[in-house]
């Protein structure tokens, strides 16, 4: 009798233990599911906010300079953003102008300012090999120089690093001028060859750069008449540039700041509005000079064909 009671008690204990184990497992699985759902939600919000920010920036990259100019004065970052988030309410003029880019579950607020920033005299930019980099000189002070410092990748013995500078100015009376210069890199820099190859001697118009700024080789472009445009073409090497102005610094482009945010109630899993997980920022700097290409600096040019008298 006692044995039967003991066996029943043991069975009950086993059942209770099994039930407890099952419940604990169930709770664990449940909590894991909730956590996973929450994480997926946060991930989704993160990507939605990121996507919104990028889409806002892309939308503004497509705008022409004159359109972007309309945002400069009244719709800069300080007018739209604070440390806590978006300014509320957002300035009506910016909303009317298109600073807010709406999507179904998210939105982006986009601010525009000039580049380089006010007070800065140096413009830093890079360009791929054999491409023409346009530098805006409108408003630059005639009679002064613009200092171009550039750094190429390592040269080979046969590919001496050189750079072509095409300076465009208006000479008045509807006439325009092109002044061309060619420069070699500063000889002592490690990425520059020790001396120009013989075929590119001084008699071939080579002008060796005599100054450098750290690892950058520098030369001056004198600005005459009314400065308009400087095209730089680094041959053989891609290059990074530091371009320093004396006097007035012409705007070189636009700094576009786009902040994407998930809208309230956009998804289940709880609200993340105003949290850092649901707001992402993208900044893109864009040139204000068109990428005309090499062709516009030559009297006759073909992209893929020959030029032949026959």
């Amino acid at each position, binding site marked *: 009798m006692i044995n039967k009671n003991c066996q029943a008690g043991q069975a009950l204990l086993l059942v209770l233990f099994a039930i407890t184990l099952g419940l604990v497992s169930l709770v664990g699985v449940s909590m894991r599911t909730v956590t996973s759902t929450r994480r997926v939600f946060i991930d989704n919000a993160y990507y939605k906010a990121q996507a919104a920010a990028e889409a806002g920036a892309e939308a503004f990259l497509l705008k022409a300079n004159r359109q972007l100019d309309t945002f400069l004065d009244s719709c800069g970052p300080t007018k739209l953003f604070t440390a806590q988030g978006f300014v509320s309410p957002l300035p009506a003029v910016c909303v009317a102008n298109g600073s807010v880019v709406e999507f179904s579950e998210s939105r982006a607020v986009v601010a525009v300012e000039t580049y380089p920033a006010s007070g800065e005299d140096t413009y830093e930019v890079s360009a791929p090999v054999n491409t023409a980099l346009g530098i805006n000189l409108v408003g630059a002070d005639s009679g002064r120089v613009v200092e171009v410092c550039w750094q190429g990748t390592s040269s080979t013995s046969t590919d001496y690093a050189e750079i072509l500078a095409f300076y465009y100015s208006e000479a008045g009376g509807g006439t*325009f001028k092109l*002044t*061309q210069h060619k420069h070699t890199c500063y000889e002592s820099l490690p990425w520059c060859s020790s001396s120009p190859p013989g075929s590119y001697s001084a008699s071939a118009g080579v002008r060796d750069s005599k100054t450098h700024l750290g690892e950058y080789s520098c030369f001056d472009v004198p600005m005459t008449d009314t400065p308009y445009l400087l095209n730089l073409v680094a041959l053989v090497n891609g290059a990074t540039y530091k371009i320093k102005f004396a006097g007035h610094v012409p705007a070189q482009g636009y700094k576009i700041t786009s902040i994407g945010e998930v809208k309230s109630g956009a998804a289940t899993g709880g609200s993340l509005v105003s949290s850092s997980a649901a707001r992402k920022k993208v900044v893109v700097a864009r040139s204000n000079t068109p990428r005309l290409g090499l062709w516009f600096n030559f*009297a006759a040019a073909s992209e893929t064909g020959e030029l032949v008298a*026959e």
Partner: protein
Amino acid sequence: MAIGFLHGTLVFSVVVLCAAVGSSHAYAAVWFTTYGAGVLSGQEGDASIKTVQPYFSPTDLFKSTLVQPGVVSPVPTMPDFGYGALIARQNYDVKETSLAGATSPTEDAFVKHAEGMGDALPEYQRFVDAATSTIPASCNRAKLLTACNLAPGIYKASLANINSSLNDLNGQKYHVAPNEGGLLILVQEDPASTGTLAINYNVAAVPSAGSKRLVLVTNGRIAIGPNVGTAAPATQAAYLAREADIQAMLITTTTSDPSIDVLAGSTKSVKIEGPLIAKGKVRFRRNADAGIVKWPGVFVEFNPMYTTEFARLDSSMALFGPAAIKWTYD
């Protein structure tokens, strides 16, 4: 009587001899040259830039080089990059003929091989999309350049209308209305067309147009006919000083062979304002042999106005598009 006859014969013989000697100096070959800027070819393979220049004496204004130094004082010593550069993707073949008739490479301003072009011409459709200026309904579309007084802007027109308008320049100059901007751009609106944009007469702007200029953009071939050009003027200095026969910029995005063709058929020398831009081959077939004086079949004079105006135009049109400098995330 007999003495007179002998004297006459002698004079005639001297004249014939001089003429023969003079004609022996004539350069009966096809050649071209540029002024104000250089030449660029992105073709893979040999001889992407090819021309044989005539011999010029050191005192001549013209030089045997492909890129002319032009009127500067003192007389320049070639080469100097300041006059322009020759950039070839691989090889080039620019030679000069010596007095003895042999050829040797010229000492041109600056020659460089560039392994591949980092830039690409804009897709043709971008020009078409950017052509948003409206041709007035009252305008005779067969006379776009002479009867419509179009203002600077980018216009679409059919190839037939562009060709008709160019043919209407027979004895006339093109008009550009006084307005903001400097370029009147005509874009062929039927990109599938395989026709040729034909320039059969000189393309010059009326004086009131000032520095405003015409730009022709096509997806097909451009042919410059034998009527285009001018008989050579008296001196080389006069040649350099005269207005261009084609005061227009030509752009074609076709890779047809050739993309731009300056046809033979006359001895007129053609002076064209550059940049002259093609995606495919550019062929100069004009032989402007004028006897003792040697003139280029084609002379491309770079006009910086086109580059500056295209840059200015793009501020509002975003035709070429800017380069994104850098992206940062936070």
